[in-house]
């Protein structure tokens, strides 16, 4: 927080267009934004039309050059601007944290919209005093390119199968940064979002567990981020995520060992990031080339494991055809993901070249 407390908000503070309902005065929304002119209006509008409207929407314009600030202001958000680019999402969020006067803080990406009742649903998690953070269901806003299709299926699988199980055992792996709510007091006690890793949301989630707090997953609270639509953006995002995961394991592994269930989830994820990536990129192609092409079936062997939870979610959302059509995109995304996981392991753990520059993936 040291870096943020020395900076000053230079943006104007417009009056909210309409007075929020009484119940809403408990949540302030922080929207970190850097060159988000094309999406910020939809984000602010979706926040303003919530069944439980937030007390304030604070857009942190991280020195954009595309007029993000003007658009956000026009839509009725409070816009603040650090004197210079903070260099990361965590930095931008920390800049706004001192301005929060409500007991709860919600963070949402500037390219994310919410279902009309998402805020109301996610806040229900805080009826338990031991809950410090809550996250919701994430689904891509746009599903057109192969990358977006792959991500759609990945989310349909993970948020219908993995995440509810993690929540049942009271250890969601991560309270996703694109849409999460927190107790402001706890955030302040922790010094805001740490800038030590590329995945500030994972860092914060694991830190909360270490301090004895609970984190909840609320599947009824749905958010729709814009996912990377092309190879360039996908690579930036996967690079950040994979490095962020490895950095967090390196940073927290000792403390995680003492957290039941999370210990196993992280150990298994770490193993898969290494071994399954090697299998996908090296072992299966090698066996297919040297022994039999039938080994290529290895890529499809877990199709039922992926598709069943996704189909269940697809039926519920009446998007069954979309789920099935997205499977090839998922296979593609998984190949690329494997590559970035291995690269991150190599850089972070073997070569000692840690990623420190935050590149926006979308």
């Amino acid at each position, binding site marked *: 927080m040291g870096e943020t407390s020395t900076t000053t908000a230079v943006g104007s503070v417009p009056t909210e267009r309409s007075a929020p309902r009484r119940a809403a005065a408990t949540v302030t929304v922080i929207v970190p934004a850097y060159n988000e002119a094309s999406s910020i209006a939809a984000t602010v509008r979706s926040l303003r039309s919530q069944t439980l409207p937030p007390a304030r929407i604070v857009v942190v314009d991280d020195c954009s050059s595309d007029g993000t600030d003007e658009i956000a202001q026009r839509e009725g958000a409070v816009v603040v601007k650090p004197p210079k680019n903070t260099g990361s999402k965590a930095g931008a969020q920390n800049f706004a944290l001192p301005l929060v006067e409500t007991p709860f803080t919600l963070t949402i990406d500037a390219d994310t919209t919410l279902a009309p009742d998402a805020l109301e649903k996610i806040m229900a998690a805080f009826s338990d005093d031991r809950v410090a953070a809550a996250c919701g269901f994430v689904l891509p806003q746009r599903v057109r390119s192969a990358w977006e299709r792959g991500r759609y299926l*990945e989310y349909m*699988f*993970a948020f*219908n*199968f*993995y995440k*509810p*199980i993690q929540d*049942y*055992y009271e250890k969601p*792996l*991560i309270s*996703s940064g694109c849409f999460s709510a927190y107790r402001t007091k706890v955030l302040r006690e922790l010094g805001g979002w740490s800038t030590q890793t590329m*995945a500030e949301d*994972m860092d914060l989630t694991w830190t909360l567990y270490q301090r004895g707090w609970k984190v909840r997953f609320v599947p009824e609270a749905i958010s729709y981020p814009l996912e990377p639509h092309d190879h360039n953006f996908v690579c930036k995002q996967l690079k950040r*995520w994979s490095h*962020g*995961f490895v950095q967090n394991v390196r940073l927290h592994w*000792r403390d995680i*060992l*003492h957290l039941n269930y999370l*210990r*196993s*989830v*992280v*150990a*298994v*994820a*770490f*193993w*898969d*990031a290494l*071994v*399954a*990536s090697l*299998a*996908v990129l090296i072992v299966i192609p090698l066996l297919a080339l040297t022994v*039999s092409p*039938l080994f290529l*079936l290895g890529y*499809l*062997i*877990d*199709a*039922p*494991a*992926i598709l*069943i*939870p996704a189909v*269940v979610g697809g039926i519920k959302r009446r998007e069954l055809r979309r789920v099935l059509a997205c499977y090839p995109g998922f296979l593609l995304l*998984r190949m690329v*993901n*494997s590559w970035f*996981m291995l690269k991150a392991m190599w850089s972070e753990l073997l070569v000692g070249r840690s990623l420190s520059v935050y590149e926006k993936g979308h």
Partner: protein
Amino acid sequence: MSAGLPGIGIGGLFFILSALCMPFVELARTIRGGSSRSRWRIVGRQSAMAWAIVFAVERMLWLTKVVPSVVEGAGQAGGMGRAAVAAAAQVPAHALPVMPILVTFACLAVVVVGAFALRLIDR
């Protein structure tokens, strides 16, 4: 984000086992008086999905046994015909590749128990 790779590897198996354990955990919770109908709904949904995955993967693994037999049969008969079908029919309905399954279970056990052991050392 999904850390690791969804589906492939021991992660899938870990979460399937986690889901299959949920009814027992919830039963214990019910006995202690800490359960609810909504909790059981989640338990039912996740464990049903896990059973469906187990069944579907079992069929998929069976297919990986059948496909090579069919290809081999077709090769011998000079095309896809009766010989190929006969070769497929020879594969037992529950012929699973036992070794890969055992290896996967063993890997999962090593990783989970290894992490637990590390915890005991790092007191």
